[in-house]
């Protein structure tokens, strides 16, 4: 392995890590700002200009609060829960292409940590692991509410994973590949997958809300019924880890949606821009576009949270099993018919 390759990958991983942390931290700020704006309020504005230092203040508070481990709790698993949630949430960004190949100091660098052959399945697996943090934490707390939250989290994740997988299958029939890099490259210009898979995108979006446990699907931590759900017994930084994991999950699912359905770093007229700005600055604009899309999705997550009320538990299950899964299967069938139809049409 050459040294440059090692440096390049290490730098990329570090940048991604810091970026993910920063975005997650500022998501907490943005969440409160967006909530305030949607309710005719101002939001945090005391810590620094526009309250921009608020995440630091919150982090400091979390750090210095008292750590409480309930006496009836399983100590190791109690600590393992939030750690696992945070760890797993970080894994997702490894296979995401954040831009086209970029030329730095005469070296062509791909803006992707690793391009594995089964990228989408990898993301899918990592997402499905996310529920362990909730389950282990909820069970180890030795609290009825936590346990209820954990069980809800598990059943919700499993139910919505199926619809999510089925909606991805329809997408794969269009793209013919599982690699994120190729999927992103296929959507050159304005050939975004959302134009070919609108229904699939809708199903994926709804499932993404359920998988990240965001309102209207935040049943695992539903305050009105379960106090705090799986995080009832958590305090200080362990609780912060759960919160952070939620925001990182939101970031990762925004990234995945941006790449899979909204073209990632592609935008109409990108060829002309790339030619005008050269191989360094052109792709950087693409990265900017990508992050614009990601932030738009994060805003959408928050916008929905402060608009739509929470589902009842049976409604959640009904929606998952009786609506989304049949819809996703119908989507697969329709996609298949259209693809075969086009093939026949082209042969004629």
């Amino acid at each position, binding site marked *: 392995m050459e040294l440059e390759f090692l440096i390049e990958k290490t730098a990329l991983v570090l940048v991604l890590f810091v970026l993910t942390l920063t975005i997650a931290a500022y998501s907490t700020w943005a969440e409160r700002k967006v909530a305030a704006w949607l309710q005719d309020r101002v939001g945090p504005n005391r810590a620094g200009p526009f309250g921009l230092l608020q995440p630091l203040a919150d982090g400091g508070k979390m750090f210095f609060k008292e750590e409480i481990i309930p006496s009836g709790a399983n100590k190791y*698993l109690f600590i393992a829960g939030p750690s696992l949630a945070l760890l797993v949430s970080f894994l997702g960004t490894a296979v995401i292409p954040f831009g086209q190949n970029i030329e730095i100091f005469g070296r062509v660098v791909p803006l992707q940590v690793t391009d*594995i*052959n*089964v990228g989408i*399945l*990898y993301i*899918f*697996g990592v*997402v*499905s*692991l996310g*529920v*362990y943090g909730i*389950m*282990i934490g909820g*069970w180890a707390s030795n609290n009825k509410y936590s*346990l209820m939250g*954990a*069980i809800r989290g*598990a*059943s919700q*994740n*499993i139910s919505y*994973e199926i619809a999510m997988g089925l909606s991805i299958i329809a997408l794969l029939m269009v793209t013919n590949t*599982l690699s994120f890099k190729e999927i992103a490259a296929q959507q050159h210009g304005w050939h975004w997958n959302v134009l070919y898979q609108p229904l699939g995108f809708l199903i994926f979006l709804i499932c993404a809300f359920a998988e990240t446990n965001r309102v209207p699907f935040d049943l695992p931590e539903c305050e009105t019924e379960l106090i705090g759900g799986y995080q009832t017994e958590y305090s200080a930084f362990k609780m912060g880890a759960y919160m952070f994991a939620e925001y990182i999950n939101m970031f990762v699912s925004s990234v995945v949606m941006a790449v899979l359905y909204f073209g990632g770093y592609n935008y109409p007229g990108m060829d002309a821009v790339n030619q005008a700005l050269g191989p360094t600055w052109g792709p950087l604009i693409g990265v900017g576009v990508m992050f614009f899309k990601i932030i738009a999705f994060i805003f959408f997550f928050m916008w929905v949270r402060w608009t739509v009320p929470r589902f009842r538990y049976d409604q959640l299950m009904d929606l998952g099993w009786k609506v989304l899964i049949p819809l996703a299967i119908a989507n697969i069938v329709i996609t298949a018919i259209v693809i075969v139809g086009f093939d026949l049409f082209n042969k004629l």
Partner: protein
Amino acid sequence: MSLFYVVAFLSIIFALLVIFTKNPVHSVLYLIATFFTFTIHYIILNAQFLAVVNFIVYMGAIMVLFLFVLMLMNLNTDTEPMKSTLLKVVGAIAGGCLLVTLIGSMKTLSTASTTAMDNTGIGLVENLGKVLFSDFLLPFELSSILLLAAMVGAVLLAKKENKTA
């Protein structure tokens, strides 16, 4: 090769822990760790698809359901059912049979010559899909029908309970 030994050692350790821990939830967690080491084995063998599917299906879905059921039943040492000596004897016989079968199959394996893998990409999705839908089409479809039958059975069971209630 050293990576293989480390991972193999870990998977054996975790597998033993699954059996020897008293708490069923811990047992399931160790089983998850065992499956994770299996995933690493698949990756070492360059079977990316198999690795990820093992990851999603076993670690991400089946073990979640295991945990789910265990948490719902809230098993602990007090509620553990009594184990009769008869059960132990039956268990030992069943385990012994499995061991004998395994040894027997291993013996036939060792006689077969090890075929070198010409195609390193055999574990990738495209190749796997082509093989599944050409050479192994019948077993593949049969297993899918089996799954469908199981699904219909599950739905029927659930429905029946609903009517009597």
